[in-house]
């Protein structure tokens, strides 16, 4: 089981969505959660704080989620961070682009708590395998 102290950054331009994800994460036992309202804000927080996991929307002002993902993967210090995309973008093109850019998971909105749980577990499992 992953450490419950694991620090999440939830990136979404809608505060209600951030709140929902925060509550779902809390429900799953992760209460160390911070929020960012777009990619720019997220990058600032990521470089300043020691985050372990990023949950990001795609369509956001200033910097979208795909760009954020690319920046994270291009940054020497951040590139190892797991990134889970939660987005309303449902085109196959989008999903493939996110996977190619290095997303660890992709969830299409609207989604359920169990989907989030399942994707998180899957990502943790893979990370453990890599780490082991």
């Amino acid at each position: 089981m992953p450490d419950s102290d694991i620090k999440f950054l939830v990136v979404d331009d809608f505060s209600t969505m951030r709140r929902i994800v925060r509550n779902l994460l809390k429900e799953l036992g992760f209460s160390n959660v911070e929020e960012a309202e777009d990619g720019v804000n997220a990058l600032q927080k990521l470089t300043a704080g020691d985050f372990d996991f990023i949950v990001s929307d795609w369509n956001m002002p200033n910097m979208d989620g795909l760009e954020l993902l690319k920046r994270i993967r291009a940054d020497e210090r951040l590139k190892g961070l797991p990134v889970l995309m939660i987005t309303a973008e449902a085109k196959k093109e989008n999903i493939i682009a996110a996977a190619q850019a290095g997303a660890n998971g992709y969830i299409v909105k609207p989604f359920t708590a169990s989907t989030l749980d399942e994707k998180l577990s899957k990502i943790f499992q893979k990370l453990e395998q890599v780490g082991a």
Partner: protein
Amino acid sequence: METASSHADNDTPELEALFESIVAAKEDPGAKPAAPALPRTVPAKSRARIKSPVVAVAPAPVAKAKPNGAAESPPEDGGRDMIERIGHMTRQLHDTLRELGYDSLVEQAASAIPDACDRLAYVAHLTEQAANRALSATEKAKPLQEEMERDATRLHADWERVFANQMTPEQFKEVAERTRAYLKGVPAKTQATNSELMEIMMAQDFQDLTGQVIKKITDLAKSLEDQLVALLIEHAVPLKRADAGEGMLNGPVINGEGRDDVVTDQTQVDNLLESLGF
């Protein structure tokens, strides 16, 4: 006339007839000269589309049919001719729009847009408010539920020990006291939870309001579409239907039926990624 008809074979018979009459007028030296030779860049389609035949528009075939005829007009007049001609066409489009009553329709549509924007802003406001109300209520109710569950579980464990005769009379007394306090406290907590549930229910009242507003906007969009389509059918060159969903920022798929470029549920996302080896 062979060349003329082969050039004008995309035109309507009435235009052809008009063309004939103009050629005839031109050949008659006594007749008042028709509009000067026109720039040949005007596409045949735009001629065919203009409904009421105007002399200024029609002579284009003359220029086409008789390439030498075009040279009659001095080249420096070309620019002015073009401007005059565009002026004519604009005027004509304007008149046609008015004749058909489209100008007022377009005006109505244009004035309806800001109203629609206000309505949509209202929808956004109401839905956000509702989401926040529901989230707040949930956040308040959850700790109460968790507290009751935790206390009940602990008391149950204690009572199991009582029934297993594992407790001293003092301990039993203490358990009885705690049970009494717990039972006393439960109704206040369930009432509080209940009122939060009511709050969540009441927060859904936006649905009724936004539903009505959205219906109005849908009607407006529909009538706008109808008017624009009618206008286009009447006046524009055939439009290439815009491809649905260009680019990467399309937002939620409103209707995925019949589209194979989108996924409609999480299973499809997972299958796609798996098939690609991710």
